[in-house]
């Protein structure tokens, strides 16, 4: 079975632009979470979605938004990009939500802001 797939793998944008990152969960997984990993740090929680509804949000500005589609894939949107948004964006999927569900991570999208 395919794991969590993310696209694109790399992306270069300039300040002020917007970006859309995509994630396809493992088949059968209904929950998707997004994390931001800045170089040299651990991942930081951005959002969790389950059954197309937002179930949790981390401490990120409103420039960050996400949605989940009926097929459980997800998009992360970031508007008005800043230099500090340069990071690896990770998507993780799990069967359903809740603390007992192991999360499986994709290999991420490396976003560079010039």
């Amino acid at each position: 079975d395919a794991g969590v797939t993310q696209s694109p793998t790399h992306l270069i944008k300039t300040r002020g632009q917007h970006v859309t990152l995509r994630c396809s969960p493992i088949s059968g997984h209904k929950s998707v979470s997004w994390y931001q990993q800045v170089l040299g740090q651990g991942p930081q929680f951005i959002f969790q979605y389950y059954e197309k509804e937002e179930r949790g949000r981390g401490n990120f500005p409103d420039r960050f938004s996400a949605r989940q589609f009926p097929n459980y894939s997800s998009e992360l949107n970031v508007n008005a990009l800043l230099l500090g948004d340069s990071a690896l964006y990770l998507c993780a999927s799990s069967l359903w939500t809740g603390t007992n569900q192991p999360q499986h991570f994709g290999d991420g999208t490396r976003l560079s802001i010039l």
Partner: protein
Amino acid sequence: TQLLEQSPQFLSIQEGENLTVYCNSSSVFSSLQWYRQEPGEGPVLLVTVVTGGEVKKLKRLTFQFGDARKDSSLHITAAQPGDTGLYLCAGVTGGTSYGKLTFGQGTILTVHP
């Protein structure tokens, strides 16, 4: 704000040596997970510890969850070059409808042949 402090941040050792990585917090977590991440890849789950005082072994890796469920340690015996990577601890919070991981900043381990 829940924080997880990992130490050390960097560890460079020779093949065959033993090492311990620590993960500490002032917060209580439902469970704690350890991940290993290689360059260009996402984190891969190694183990989940749930009960205070729990010890789990995965070949040469031993994981322990503190009695108060606020801290954890990872011990590697006879490290090998293949153990090289970024080790991350993550505290799990939430409930039945929501699960969030709070990661430590990671420990970069380099094992020299």
